[in-house]
């Protein structure tokens, strides 16, 4: 199910700092919900393993994370695709924009997520909420990682 979610965070550090964090594998790994492995395979590509957990429903996705449309320090697109085996697959991307504001940075994002296979077929009723939560969690984690006082 393709879904679009948007949101924004005001961060207390300048865009350049946010940009660096957005490109830092350790930060990304800490922020991607359930990320167990994020190995850099090129400047803009990572091999990733993440286990998403919606209550008792756990799915391990293996795939890659790609950074594109790089426009330092104004933003980029971070995309991921994962294969969950018989559970299905997930693809998604977030367009992230950074704007200097009030001495810090306004981070705004638009996430598009797509889930296919068995999860989409069986979990239709809950899947949008689950995807929204994962997107929210990523940016919430990121905001926390960049500045503890950001909201």
């Amino acid at each position: 199910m393709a879904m679009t979610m948007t949101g924004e965070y005001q961060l207390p550090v300048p865009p350049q700092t946010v940009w660096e964090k957005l490109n830092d594998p350790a930060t990304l790994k800490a922020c991607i919900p359930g990320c167990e492995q994020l190995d850099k395979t090129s400047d803009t590509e990572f091999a990733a393993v993440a286990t998403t957990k919606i209550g008792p429903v756990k799915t391990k996705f293996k795939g890659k994370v790609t950074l594109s449309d790089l426009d330092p320090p104004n933003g980029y697109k971070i995309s991921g695709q994962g294969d969950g085996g018989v559970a299905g697959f997930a693809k998604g991307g977030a367009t992230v924009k950074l704007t200097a504001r009030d001495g810090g940075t306004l981070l705004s994002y638009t996430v598009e997520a797509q889930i296919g296979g068995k999860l989409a077929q069986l979990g239709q009723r809950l899947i949008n909420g689950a995807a929204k939560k994962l997107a929210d969690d990523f940016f919430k984690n990121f905001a926390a990682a960049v500045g503890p006082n950001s909201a």
Partner: protein
Amino acid sequence: MAESSTTTKIRRKEDASLLSGRGRYADDLPVPVGTLYAHVVRSPHAHADIVRIDARRALAHDGVWAVLTGEDVRKLSDPFLAAVKTPVQQWSLAVERVRYVGEPAALVVAESRYVAEDAAELVEIEYAPLPAVIDPVAACAKSAPLLHPQAGTNEVSVREFRYGDTAAAFARADRRIAMTTTFPRLSFTPIECYVVVARHNAAGGSYDVTANFQGPFSMHPVMARALRVKGPKLRLRIPPDSGGSFGIKLSVFPYIVLMALAARVTGRPVKWVEDRIEHLVAASSGPNRVTQIEAALTNDGCVLALRLDQLEDYGAFLRAPMPGPLYRMQGAVTGAYDIAHVDVINRVVLTNKMPASLIRGFGGPQLYLALERLMQRIAVELDLDPLEVIRRNLIAGEKFPYRAAAGALYDSGDYARAVEIATGDGRLDELKRRRAAARAQGRRYGIGFAAIVEPAMSNMGYLSTLMSKEAREKAGPKSGAVSMATVNIDPLGAVTVTADVTVQGQSHETVLAQIVAKALGLRPDDVEVVLEMDTAKDQWSIAAGTYSSRFASGTAVAAHMAAVQMREKLKAIAAKQLNVLPADVELSGGKIRSRSNPDNALPFGRVAATSHWSPGLLPESMAPALSETAAWTPQELEPPSRDDRINTSLTYGFVFDMCGVEIDPVSYQVRVDRYVSMHDAGRILNVTIAGGQIRGSFAQGVAAALYEEFAYNEEGAFLTGTFADYLVPTVSEIPEVEILHYESPSPLTPLGAKGLAEGNCMSTPACIANAIADALGVADVTLPATPRRIHALLERAGATGKR
């Protein structure tokens, strides 16, 4: 057969076993020792190349006998024949590419279903996803992703038809009114899913398969060809009971071939029972259709001519005998209306969805949604009463038998009279009062009508209309529809009937017993009906099976004919024994007697015994043995004419529906307040069973109008994979329907009966859509009219009452 004994209430013979759990369904039948169980590994992608399949881990799993892939299937079998010649190849497993979510990509065969499913998780399939196309209109664009690159297009069949002089009629018309309708994708999910048990006889190179296949048996040669054997080497048996079909169980055929191959590979019998999740994602559905329809009109609402552009979406493959739904209504495309000129464009498009096929009503719901929505729209735009627009265009009673513009021969009817009775006995005035009262309180209430022609017993030649006349001439004519039934009498006088239908719950057993008993002067309980099919031993033709309402105008007729043949034979035998002329003999009350001297009588069984025990006493030149088979094909089912006119079906019934609906202001649910359905199905064979068929068809019509839809997102993910999302209405959701009958016996069949089991699948979606349009004052009503869609409609109109 105009007498009352066939129309009196007769209890169903089937009920005792079905209601007490003694039905014999496919999954109940015993299987041979050593039977293995199969599980299908399905594609999670709507469109992807298969890069690699690695089954080694699965094969190493304890209890696994085999894993089949597309490569195996390609080696062991041939592609399925299709009705439309295209470069597209289709097999029982995906070869090189998957084209819809749920497409079978591999088959695991193991000692139990549990083990097979465990091992299925170990089959590694690497896919390279491709862009998918879901929308039928988008799929026709030049830039659309191609499902079958070798075909060069997704629009695999386009045919234009001109009946009469439509252009001239449009030129002289006062007005033109056009609209576009889209009929959704849905299925009528039977309770019982597919079941196949396949055996391979290595010594004879033959296959023996039991499956709950429903026909048409024109698919038997398709399966045999795919298995690379001659017809008799594929013995197909159909169990005595089936948990519903509604057209769906035609599409078990690829699995019959797949399991036969699995049996051959493993050397063991292989059983597969489809589960509900598989059924919803990949079994079958009706095709969705986009129709552009335009009428040329006089100012007083008379339709002079029609133009239709019908774009039908068959999903990933066009399987035989598709595109049936697009052509089944071809001769009757003008519906119940006297319209002399019509142009039709029929287009078939393929998209990344499960392959579509026949479901109850096939083709009718799609056509009538367009035609009947158009009639309502004409009324709105010309400011006329919708019922008046229908009345002005109905075919007049004196015109029957009526040859419709596109070739259908409507056998009998008096549509205006039926409408008059329906609006009177159905209390249209009261319905209007209810609407006025509701509207006075600010409630959203609307009234809808639908007037449709219900065809029955398809002409086997109708699909050839899709070929050009040159191609038809080259291929040779196709026409007719053979029905067969056999009546046997044993040495003690017990009567048995077999016939070319598959049982799906239509009460064939009851009606056949009733027809044969009547001809032989017996009680229905004296007649045993055996309907499990065996292609190796039973009489069948390519038309055999249960579909297109062929029973009442086809098989029932054949049974009647066989019984009459038997009666005449018994009369001749008895005449000799009673010492009277055969013309003086009658069969009644279990006796065979002299009409002029009723005391001169013999028990039925005694006469029957003579032919068995003393064939020498039979009248001269009479063949011994009491076994009579009749085959019936009506002359009226001619091949398409040179100008593409085609009598698509044998009989044409009439349905007129009217209803009142109200939209709930909080839940946005459409509630059917009252529904009246008038049926002219010729002579009613059994009024109880007719009522059951109409109610069932009505429930599915309501389902199509308000609940059921196979939903895909733009990327092709399947969103209605469980009964939590694919909403089959239950008894709580189905409104009451008031059923009325008007009988115009068909002159073309000895019983005078027409089909009636599909009518409401065709009329009810259109009738409810018209009522919703009336309630909301809108032109576009998308089915199913779910609360979400109604809410969006009202929100666009600023009418949700949002503060």
